């Protein structure tokens, strides 16, 4: 399909001699897609393969019509790793200014990104002195620089206050409305309801890929967590 943002064929990734993903096929479209599954199921590895920083054994990953990790994609993709990848000894604004210069985007992008993650009051604080949640927001702000076409976010809402989590999910939908594709991973099932599309993952296998409504309906479950359980049990 042409309108797929990400298409993966036969992806196999082996880490420390153990296959994490085996012959995975997957198509991901626009909107906000949630990648849900327990920790250790291969979510981060899949995201890293999509960003193009994961060594892969076999298979093809195409992003926006180009091979994952190829040079033309490096301007068009925002990536947040699980650990906050920002410099602890710089302020939030200094971090953003540096990454903005690397990306070659305008200065007003920095202010916009700070606003978007609600760090305006802490923009001149050194990142190392911020709380864990504030640090991960600083890291998220870096991914928003330059209005990327695809955002790949590895557990960006872990440990955040519920109000802020709601605001961030609203931000993800706003970005999707403006045309960006957003791929968010989480191990918290209650975040599933906030996604347009869901990918349920376990042991390196995608168990289900549909809208939250359809997944619940198909499994005959009240919520996504129960749906996940009944799909796992049905497969066993």
């Amino acid at each position, binding site marked *: 399909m042409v309108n797929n943002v990400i298409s993966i064929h036969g992806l196999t990734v082996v880490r420390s001699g153990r296959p994490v993903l085996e012959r995975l096929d997957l198509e991901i479209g626009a909107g906000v897609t949630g990648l849900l599954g327990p920790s250790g199921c291969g979510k981060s590895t899949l995201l890293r393969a999509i960003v193009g*920083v994961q060594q892969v054994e076999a298979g093809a990953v195409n992003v926006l019509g180009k091979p994952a990790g190829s040079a033309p994609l490096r301007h068009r993709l925002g990536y947040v790793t699980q650990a906050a990848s920002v410099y602890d000894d710089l302020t939030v604004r200094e971090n953003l200014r540096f990454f903005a210069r690397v990306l070659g985007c305008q200065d007003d992008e920095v202010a916009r990104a700070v606003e978007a993650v609600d760090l305006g009051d802490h923009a001149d604080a050194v990142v190392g002195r911020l709380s864990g949640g504030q640090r991960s927001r600083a890291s998220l702000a870096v991914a928003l620089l330059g209005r990327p076409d695809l955002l790949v976010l590895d557990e960006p809402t872990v440990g955040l206050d519920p109000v802020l989590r709601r605001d961030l999910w609203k931000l993800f939908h706003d970005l999707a409305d403006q045309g960006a594709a957003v791929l968010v991973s989480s191990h918290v099932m209650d975040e599933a309801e906030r996604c347009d599309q869901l990918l349920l993952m376990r042991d390196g296998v995608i168990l289900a890929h549909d809208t939250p409504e359809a997944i619940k309906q198909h499994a005959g479950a009240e919520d996504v967590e129960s749906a996940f359980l009944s799909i796992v049990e049905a497969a066993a």
Partner: protein
Amino acid sequence: MTPRITLAVAGRVLTQLRRDRRTAAMLLLLPCLLISLLWWMFDNTYGDPFNRFGPALLAMFPFIVMFLVTSVTTLRERSSGTLERLLAMPMGKLDFLLGYALAFGLVAALQAVLAVTVSVGLLGLDIQGAVWLLGLVAVADAVLGSALGLFVSAFAQTEFQAVQFLPLIVFPQILLCGLFVPRDSLPDVLEAVSNVLPLSYAVDAMTHLTLGTQTGQVWQDLLVVVAFALGGLALGAATLRRRTP
């Protein structure tokens, strides 16, 4: 390579150093204090040992300090995920490497100015050659230290391991560089080894500068140091992988 990105990296590294007062003090003041200690040690000694050992120390400081600082900082970049993030951006490997080399080269220049001012101005170190050339050699030594530090950081998993590369990579070079035993008086095997170690050439360059005004030999030694530094940077570039396991 993009100059904008190279300069962004250099600027960022310098801002980080400025914020880290203790490291900045170590980089700039420690060489001055140690060279003063050396001068004081020889206060009661006959002959002029300070003039023999001083130049070698001026070559060693930038090399050792930059080796240490670079190996730890780049290891931190690797383990914190910032390197992975940068390499997923339009960041060339050369931009990253040269950015670091530029920032630490500047610090080394400042360090050299201070250490040479103290040595020549206060402690009476006798330098026959051009003082600016001495500064240039110091900067080349620093870039060499940075390049090797960057390379070894790929083989360390923790900062603790990175620091242990100092005795492994740097100490043998200090022992064999001609400081303790003149290089041509070393056993043949050790002399051959010392001939392929970069610090030997750095110390030779400094010694030539103190002893005479002839610059031919100095430029030759400097060229060897620069070649080693470029080789180190190339090896460092090979350890920067966009895709990691």
